[in-house]
């Protein structure tokens, strides 16, 4: 199908984006890589009257390092993350996830900001941001606010972004020497959205975040399971797997029912264990 008619503006700076968002409200949509938005227009699932193309805005580009964080501009493409030496050194979980996101031609245009703002519950990046306890930097005309990943995702395609606000950058803590991480997912075909996946990070001994994706309407942190593993190490794996039922409360989807999802969640956890636990 073809997209319905809409207007198009290539914004040159952020002020112009905020003006247009103010004038057009709900009717306007930000266009980043277009790799989720344009399919939804082509399928006529969405009918904005105006697309605001933000690709030319320099403020939203680039990957920067500070002493203990890495700040990634919203417009950073998947392929730029995949190739970045800063990311492969300091945010290894992201580097490990990248090859699983869609296919090369889509990664050439799709952006991290677009993926996080879109908030597809089966997407890799929202779960990675959750596992890494990333901070989202949101901007409107007057101010900037910082929101933790665990508070950013509200539900299916729903986020903490307010009218007139955009996602400007994402801040990831740099991995320390004791940092451990694991990423794995199950998909029917390489590059497809996952049936289920796990992004896990342990910034230091005694801390562990297990962020599942493809199980509910947003990334889910399996806190009970993590507690078992922190307390008992590899010996806690049976208890951890048993507690996934309470942690995930998966309702199942087109890919698989809740029982299958739960089974697969445990499979992924066992696969991740050696990388996460020093003694496993």
């Amino acid at each position, binding site marked *: 199908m073809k997209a*319905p008619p809409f207007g198009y503006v290539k914004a040159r700076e952020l002020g112009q984006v905020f003006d247009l968002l103010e004038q057009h409200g709900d009717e306007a949509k930000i266009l980043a890589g*277009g*790799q989720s938005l344009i*399919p939804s227009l082509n399928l006529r699932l969405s009918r904005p009257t105006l697309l605001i193309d933000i690709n030319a805005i320099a403020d939203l580009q680039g990957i920067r390092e500070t002493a203990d964080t890495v700040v990634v501009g919203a417009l950073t493409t998947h392929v730029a993350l995949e190739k970045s030496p800063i990311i492969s050194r300091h945010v290894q979980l992201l580097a490990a996830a990248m090859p699983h996101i*869609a296919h090369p031609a889509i990664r050439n245009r799709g952006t991290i900001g677009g993926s996080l703002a879109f908030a597809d519950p089966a997407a890799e990046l929202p779960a990675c941001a959750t596992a890494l306890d990333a901070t989202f930097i949101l901007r409107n005309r007057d101010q900037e606010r910082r929101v933790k990943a665990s508070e950013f995702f509200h539900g299916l395609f729903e986020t903490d972004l307010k009218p007139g606000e955009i996602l400007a950058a994402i801040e990831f803590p740099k991995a320390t020497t004791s940092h451990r991480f694991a990423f794995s997912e199950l998909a029917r075909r390489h590059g497809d959205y996952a049936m289920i996946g796990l992004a896990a990070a342990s910034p230091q001994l005694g801390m562990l975040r297990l962020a599942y994706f493809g199980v509910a309407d947003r990334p889910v942190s399996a806190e009970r399971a993590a507690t078992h593993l922190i307390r008992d190490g590899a010996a806690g794996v049976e208890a951890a797997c048993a507690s996934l039922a309470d942690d995930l409360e998966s309702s199942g989807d087109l890919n698989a029912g809740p029982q299958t999802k739960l089974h697969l969640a445990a499979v992924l956890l066992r696969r991740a264990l050696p990388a996460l636990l020093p003694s496993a």
Partner: protein
Amino acid sequence: MEQHEISVIVNGQKLRRRVSARQHLIDFLRNELSLTGSHLGCEHGVCGACTIQVNGTAVRGCLMLAVQADGAKVETIEGLSDSGAIADLQEAFHQYNALQCGFCTPGMLATAAELVELHPHADREEIRAHISGNYCRCTGYHAIVDAIAFVLETRRNKGGAA
């Protein structure tokens, strides 16, 4: 319908055109410029038949607007063929029976062209990962992987990609 003027280099030729905001790059190339080598399959990013190159990288022609190509360099299968840039890939696809109906082939070649350029040392698994976004309903992929692996090896042996 809202119109925009764009200036774009398509297969080496500089053009100025008016396009409607909602027109996809692939429809612009096929319908306005009669470059019908790139195909339109699913129209939502899944099949890869519309893959072309924009500023040297492979993109989905159905997931980019023509107006977004303003100032860009676009190469379609016609341009890639005429310049000889992928002559060895085309020859290998032929030799290895890597196409039957040919519907997927222009997109497959544009994707493969990026692979041989960027990853001269790719192994079979990496070839498969790279073409994972391009559907082929005829060949079963094996012959396509053979053809690309052959080209990679030949180019490496020529010393072009040390």
